[in-house]
């Protein structure tokens, strides 16, 4: 992504749609992970996803509830919000394109749960109409 373009993170990155290599919709940029380098600069290192990333940005009691409920529902191996490494990003436009497939990034445990317990059980769920 070293194309020398200046980006306004708030306007051009946050809350944009993330699209996978096959054009499928993955998630929103719910929050960004910034990492400080030794010389004090901040680097965008990951896209953070899900209610635990979004809740604090919504703020207030509702935001705390969102993040809190998601934290309680998360499994022990998922103590941090799902993330996509920023190195995967291939394009920043009206959507943020990533190099991987949606199934490979595994960022939506709720989607898997709903698929497994509800939608996947209804006849015809496996065929596009």
């Amino acid at each position, binding site marked *: 992504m070293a194309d020398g373009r200046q980006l306004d993170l708030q306007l051009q990155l946050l809350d944009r*749609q993330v699209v996978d290599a096959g054009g*499928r*919709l993955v998630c929103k940029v719910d929050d960004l992970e910034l990492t400080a380098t030794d010389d004090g600069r901040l680097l965008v290192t990951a896209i953070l996803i899900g209610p635990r990333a979004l809740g604090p940005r919504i703020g207030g009691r509702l935001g705390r509830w969102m993040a809190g409920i998601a934290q309680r529902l998360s499994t022990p191996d998922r103590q941090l919000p799902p993330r996509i490494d920023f190195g995967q990003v291939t394009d920043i436009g009206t959507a943020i394109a990533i190099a991987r497939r949606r199934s490979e990034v595994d960022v939506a445990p709720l989607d898997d749960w*709903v698929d497994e317990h509800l*939608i996947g059980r209804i006849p015809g*769920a496996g065929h596009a*109409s």
Partner: protein
Amino acid sequence: MKRLLAVALGVLTAIGGFVDIGDLVTNALVGSRYGLSLAWATLIGLVGICVFAEMSGRVAAVTGRATFDLVRERLGPRAGLANLVASFLVTGLTFVAEIGGVALSLELVTSVYYLLWVPLVALAVWLVIWRVRFSVLENVFGLLGLALIVFGVALWQLHPSWTGLLHQVAVPHKPDGEGTPTYLYYAIALFGAAMTPYEVFFFSSGGVEERWTRKDIITSRINVFIGFPLGAALSLAIAAVSALVLLPVGVNVDTLGQVGLPVAVAAGKIALAVAILGFVAATFGAALETGLSAGYTVAQYFGWQWGKYVRPREAARYHAVVLLSVLAAVAVLLTTVDPVKVTEYSVVFSAVALPLTYFPILVVANDPDYMGDSANGRVTNALATGMLVVIVVASVAAIPLMIATKAGQ
């Protein structure tokens, strides 16, 4: 040929979207009480929906982003969430009204009480959303909805004084004995019926589902500028026959049967049958659009995969929202709430919620960074900004007027 077929999307959103339960009830109700003296409100609504849908269609074609995608992007997560809640509730209310409308139409045909039809209608709506291809559902209900042209035939059969009708439209005049607040309240209702937010959610999301590109902007414009005026003409025909038949005998419309009554009087039994077919098609088509739109708003806010172009398993959360919306709509209707009353409120709340989605789309359509050389031109911009003022005024005035007039009594 492909282009010709694509115009069917416009016909569907014109008939199933412009004329849905809200337009049927509101136009007949207002026609029976005010004649055509409020036609100006429908015409302003027509200009508004054309401007709004054209911008949304253009944004969808250029960027591949549907309306609610942009709402969150432009308003941020917090204001976007408030917007989502409001838009979802209004769309849900309209969804309830449409399902109730299909059930009431079926009661007219079968004399089987509408509440018995409600679960079956809801099941049918869900099955169509679940299994039927997007292009099929839009064409089938778009074409069947054309049955409502029978209201135009009925108007012709009544041999009205055309100059008299035109005069009523051209020179708005509040009938004697009616209060100004009530008159304005119904103006907002007609405006909201013409310019329901879900129409734009559906139109822009449909464009994304059909993978519109810049080349399709022209198709989208044909859809909007031919389809919507056609829908508005049907709306006015409904108001006109109601004004000619029901107004003189002092019938105030509060059932769906009364909406069809002037057609029976003017053109007979067969015409009534065609009108009821039109009711079923228009309300069923609109039920599909609102059901899909309920899912679109939530999925687009959270960035979930949505749409009928993927397998339901790939859009599991989206389909779950649609399914839960259907169940919720059935639950609401089974409280025995009157669907016609729900409709009357839904059109007014549509007017209240409009600025929430109109404003972000106006901003994006004006953004050259985003839209390149397809950004709003000067004329479009002047028109769209003028419309914003009208929309905000209607939105702010709606609830005080509702309270002051006891919802139009």
